[in-house]
């Protein structure tokens, strides 16, 4: 059975995945800050996370010139990779900003 990564450079795959992960983390931090400052709570905050995530994926799609197969193993990597870990970062900064703005001072 042929290796699914046959003919692919692991170094480049890892590099692209690292860029994707860093972008996801950065967007989660920014999204969490915005949600906390705006004072959103409950499900609306989670909806805003998915909106931020979709906006980021669209930005990455444009960055890759709409040819995701050329840079990633699967086309869905841009849409699904790092969403779970990004959600944790988002919640962290969301609660932090909300507390700083509305509760602590």
């Amino acid at each position, binding site marked *: 059975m042929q290796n699914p990564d046959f*003919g*692919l*450079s692991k170094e*480049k*795959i890892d*590099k*692209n995945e690292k*860029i994707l992960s*860093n*972008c996801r983390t*950065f*967007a989660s931090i*920014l*999204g969490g*800050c*915005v949600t906390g*400052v*705006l*004072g959103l709570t409950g499900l609306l905050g989670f909806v805003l996370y998915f909106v931020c995530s979709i*906006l*980021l994926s669209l*930005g*990455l799609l444009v*960055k*890759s010139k709409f040819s995701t197969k*050329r*840079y*990633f*193993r699967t086309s869905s990597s841009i849409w699904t990779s790092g969403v779970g870990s990004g959600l944790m970062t988002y919640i962290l900064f969301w609660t932090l*900003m909300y507390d*700083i*703005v*509305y509760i602590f*001072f």
Partner: protein
Amino acid sequence: MRALLYVSLLVVAHSIFSAVQAISEQKTLGIENRSMPLDISLECIVGCLLSGFCYLKTCGDFEPISIIEQLSSRPYESYEHRPNFVLFNQKNALPSNSESKRPAAVARGEKSAAPEAPSRGDKKKST
């Protein structure tokens, strides 16, 4: 673009500070239904969108993962100009232009000394 990224992050930080001040002022005045002023909200959203855009531009470019595509972009001449074997950490120093680097045995003129390696452009013969 990186400068614009830093500026947009400063804008976000400023909006956070402004939000803290606005809410604490509303608490001091005893306002029950506290809401974020529109200008601070807009400043925060615009700052975040701008910094996200700038980060996408500066985070680095994606590179093709196909090995065939990488190899096809290299010129044919690059395969001929690869580094040869390099000698280093040799006990007998390689000959150079300065005489002070010659091995001691050769400098004393001993017959049992190792034969002198061919010099590279050094026209002076050892005596």
